[in-house]
């Protein structure tokens, strides 16, 4: 089953009964929170648990690390990042997430919620209410506080009570395992065991404290460690008596472990606090290295910190490092004490900008083999937490220029990932700063990128306004350059969407001319892409075809899978319009591998949908249905409701062509309801036609009822209906009765009881009393019944039930 859980760095020890218990509880509770002090092992326990249940969640177990999130509004974005839910138009991200998760069986692991607890509570509450297959496992110092939450307190590891228990106790097992792994050679005599048992007790069985202590056993005997930590502990407890004991124990252990570090390792450890997420060696060398800390020494120092369990290392592929939250917190304090915080944050911002710039040129311009480009792309995307931290520092410290440069270099990643809302916010925050000393063309570029984010959100008025403002500022510097080409191409798209093809054409042509002179292949491809659409919409198919072919040539030149895929889709659409279906199919099918390699789901869904339409035209209804179902399924998975609506509409036409008129009517209903939800306004004449023909075959009342059922159906149910529908065998002789049977089966047994009481004219309170349920529950049943049947009043339900003999009045 799919998951994004990190590999376990070492053997997980103890807590067997706890694991079994919580796994059992997780099957009954949709939200479970593992609570406990820092260093008690919540995260490790959650990850172990998640690993154990991976097979139970067919749609995946997804870890969202929130320790890196510094603003409550970013919680939903962090979840969307992990689930690859792409924002769509003006919908809220929450709606998109609900659409993305739907009824899939997913376990979401939210790690370290405590600092964004309210945002977590709101999000989880809404997701759980709307996504029946979702379960959430959270770790937090405090309960998340949402209804139905199971709060499970993670205790320290079991400590030995009796002498004979020492070796078998969990705390001692962990200590010994880690000590041997760290290279210690002590023999397990009765005396050593006593000393280890004493040390584990002194450390309160706190896993992090045990690991830090065990890492030192190669040079210090357990008794020595116990004595030294005890001294530290006395120092700490001298003042503060209110801090909980375990907190003091951990603090003493971390301080002790830190004190033993050579000076250079101490410097590096505190500097690592500047990273928000996982980091690689190059990042550390560039940010932390200076006269005080030679970059060449960084690797050895980092390895030293890993050996001492102060830094975690993930060795899959290229080594990536991270700090546990407790250690990161400690390191931040040391960084502040050393007076280095500002300087390090500045360096972090500069290095993050430079890396974004290098990646930008690589991604957009340099010819790279497909695989290498993909890896590079994924690496940049993985640094999202650090991008956020750097941009936040730019805003906080008033460094508009560095911030704007970073945001503009990150644009390609943001555009491809489709995270409009958050990133539009970054441009806006940076542009709101004092930009008097910033080169105007950079400010202009940022306005154009902000425009593109607004365009992605369907906020066309703002998109146009910002784009024109940005373009004007950019033109203050003469001559063509890559960033200008990008802006011209985006402006062309905005004009096309706002219904001004001539302006669109002039901007795309300007981009094409400048890019051709400069040999800028990306913008050549993009300009041809735009011109394909402009000509296509104008009915100039031959011209459109030429542009699409030229776009393909340009993108092939740089081996850009995304561009190649898009150009092939354009060629496919043109083929369909020309009724050259074989050609259309060949191009569309050729696009798929490029898009699949990138995991560009929105484009894959579009290609599949087009393939479905081509197959419909070719009369291959079976294949048409398969392609369209796959397309809708994919759109649903990424929460793209426009894609879902378009696909279901095409399926309705396929259903009608297959003689499945009832299924077609149901789908018309679902599509209508979905269009209203997302405010889509294109023509629905096709639906009216299907409904008109259905009325002739099925009669008015049956068509109406099926349509109402369709309206109440979820996209998922509609999809099932579409993929399993059977052609209507014979004309319906007694429509009213058949509808009644079918409709009634939509109701649960309890709902049918409620219908019977509605017929008797009972109020919710009376219904509650009659069925021994609360008034609120009765009201919920009534609301569900109306929703399922598509009625707006209880009287309608009662009248219908009587008329259709659902109940005896």
């Amino acid at each position, binding site marked *: 089953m799919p998951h994004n859980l990190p590999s376990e760095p070492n053997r997980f020890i103890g807590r067997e009964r706890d694991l079994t218990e919580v796994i059992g509880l997780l099957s009954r509770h949709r939200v479970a929170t593992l609570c406990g002090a820092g260093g008690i092992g919540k995260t490790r326990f959650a990850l172990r648990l998640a690993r154990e249940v991976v097979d139970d969640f067919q749609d995946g177990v997804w870890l969202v690390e929130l320790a890196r999130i510094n603003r409550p509004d970013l919680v939903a974005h962090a979840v969307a990042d992990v689930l690859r839910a792409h924002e769509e138009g003006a919908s809220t991200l929450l709606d998109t997430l609900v659409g993305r998760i739907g009824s899939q069986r997913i376990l979401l692991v939210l790690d370290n919620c405590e600092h964004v607890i309210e945002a977590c509570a709101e999000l989880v509450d809404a997701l759980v209410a709307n996504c029946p297959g979702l379960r959430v496992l959270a770790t937090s110092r405090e309960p998340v506080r949402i209804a139905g939450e199971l709060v499970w*307190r993670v*205790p320290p590891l079991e400590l030995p009570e009796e002498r004979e228990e020492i070796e078998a106790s969990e705390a001692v097992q962990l200590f010994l395992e880690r000590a041997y792994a760290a290279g210690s050679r002590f023999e397990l005599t009765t005396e050593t065991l006593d000393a280890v048992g004493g040390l584990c007790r002194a450390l309160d069985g706190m896993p992090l404290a045990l690991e830090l202590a065990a890492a030192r056993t190669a040079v210090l005997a357990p008794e020595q460690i116990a004595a030294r930590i005890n001294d530290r502990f006395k120092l700490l407890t001298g003042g503060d008596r209110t801090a909980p004991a375990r907190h003091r124990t951990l603090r003493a252990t971390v301080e002790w472990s830190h004190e033993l570090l050579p000076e250079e390792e101490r410097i590096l450890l505190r500097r690592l606090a500047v990273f928000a997420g996982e980091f690689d060696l190059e990042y550390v060398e560039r940010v932390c290295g200076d006269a005080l800390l030679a970059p060449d020494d960084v690797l050895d120092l980092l390895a030293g910190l890993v050996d001492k369990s102060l830094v975690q290392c993930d060795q899959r592929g290229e080594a990536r490092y991270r700090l546990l939250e407790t250690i990161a917190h400690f390191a931040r304090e040391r960084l502040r004490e050393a007076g280095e915080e500002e300087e390090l944050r500045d360096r972090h911002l500069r290095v993050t900008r430079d890396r974004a710039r290098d990646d930008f040129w690589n991604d957009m311009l340099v010819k790279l083999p497909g695989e290498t480009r993909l890896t590079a792309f994924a690496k940049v995307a993985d640094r999202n937490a650090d991008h956020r931290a750097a941009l936040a520092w730019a805003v906080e410290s008033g460094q508009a220029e560095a911030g704007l440069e970073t945001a503009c270099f990150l644009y390609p990643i943001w555009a491809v990932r489709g995270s409009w809302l958050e990133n539009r916010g970054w441009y806006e925050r940076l542009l709101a700063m004092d930009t008097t000393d910033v080169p105007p063309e950079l400010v202009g570029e940022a306005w154009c990128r902000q425009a593109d984010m607004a365009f992605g959100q369907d906020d066309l008025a703002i998109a146009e306004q910002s784009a024109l403002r940005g373009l004007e500022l950019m033109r203050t510097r003469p001559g063509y350059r890559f960033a200008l080409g990008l802006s011209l191409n985006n402006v062309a798209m905005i004009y096309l969407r706002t219904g001004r093809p001539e302006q669109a054409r002039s901007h795309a042509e300007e981009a094409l001319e400048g890019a051709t002179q400069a040999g800028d292949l990306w913008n050549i491809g993009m300009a041809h892409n735009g011109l394909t659409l402009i000509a296509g919409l104008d009915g100039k198919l031959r011209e459109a075809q030429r542009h699409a072919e030229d776009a393909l040539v340009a993108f092939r030149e740089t081996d850009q899978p995304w561009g190649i895929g898009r150009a092939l889709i354009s060629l496919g659409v043109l083929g369909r319009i020309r009724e050259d279906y074989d050609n259309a199919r060949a191009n569309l099918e050729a696009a798929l591998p490029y898009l699949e390699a990138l995991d560009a789901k929105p484009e894959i869904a579009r290609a599949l949908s087009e393939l479905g339409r081509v197959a419909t035209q070719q009369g291959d209804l079976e294949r048409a249905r398969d392609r369209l179902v796959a397309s809708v399924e994919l759109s649903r998975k990424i929460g793209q409701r426009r894609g879902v609506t378009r696909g279901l509409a095409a399926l309705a036409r396929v259903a009608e062509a297959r003689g499945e008129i009832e299924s077609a009517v149901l789908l018309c209903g679902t599509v209508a309801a979905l269009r209203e939800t997302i405010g889509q306004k294109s023509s629905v004449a096709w639906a009216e036609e299907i409904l008109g023909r259905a009325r002739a075959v099925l009669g008015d009342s049956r068509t109406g009822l099926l349509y109402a059922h369709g309206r109440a159906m979820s996209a998922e149910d509609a999809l099932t209906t579409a993929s399993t529908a059977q052609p209507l065998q014979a004309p319906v002789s007694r429509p009213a009765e058949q509808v009644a049977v079918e409709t009634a089966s939509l109701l649960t047994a309890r709902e049918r009881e409620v219908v019977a009481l509605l017929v008797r004219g009972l109020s919710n309170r009376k219904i509650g009393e009659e069925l021994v349920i609360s008034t609120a529950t009765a009201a919920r049943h009534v609301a569900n019944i109306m929703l399922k049947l598509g009625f707006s009043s209880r009287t309608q339900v009662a009248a219908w039930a009587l008329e259709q003999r659902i109940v005896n009045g």
Partner: protein
Amino acid sequence: MLGDATRRNGRPAVTDVRTGEVLTYELLAKKLGRAAAGLRERGLSTGDPVLVHLPPGANYPLALHAAAAAGALVLPLECDMDTELFYERLCTSRARLLITDAELAEWSTSAVGESRIRQIFAFGDVPGATSFCDLDGRPAKVPVSVAASFDGRHRIGHAGMVTELRRLSREVGLTERDTVLVAATEAREQAVMFDLAMMAGAHVIATVEPTLSRCRELIADHRVSVAAVPPRLAPVLDGEHVRLTVHGHTMVLVRTPRT
């Protein structure tokens, strides 16, 4: 212990003076089965220590007997226990579950953070705790090994409990016609008085306000026949004073004069 409970139907088992709630034997038996099964479903295994930290009231026998019926080693704690002692009991008992109520929760949950308690069940709305009343498991046969401990160290097995209760029952001689005031909060006294009263089918009047005037008022209002009150009050109440030894602890019961 509550074998006859269902036959006692609508007869009152406990009147909770603080809330005014009246728990009947029938309801007690019904809630008990579900709560016990709920505790099992939430991970309670036979022999697990469970701390019961509740004042005398309608919730007390429910929590105590549900935990026992689920096979727990029940550890009743005084509701007005001193913090140090409470914390020590949390740690030494190795208890995984704590049952408490909204009034005591704020105080007890802060200490829980340092113990091995995995889950907290509470009467009333307590953040971070599961509502005890929501425990609604499907009753199933459980390998019962009812046992209790009053000091967290010495365990009293099922047989020991029953023998002790039978002996006390003979000494006190409660019947269905008795009304018993429980104002004592000492762990053994509170637990034993509830047990004896429930075994006999008597009616318990439970109060968390053990002042002399309040006890006198309740004795009069409810026609209390036997009163278990804090040791400082027993000598000043009218009636026959009966000394009992409960699990090694001496308590004084007051048999009120018949009116």
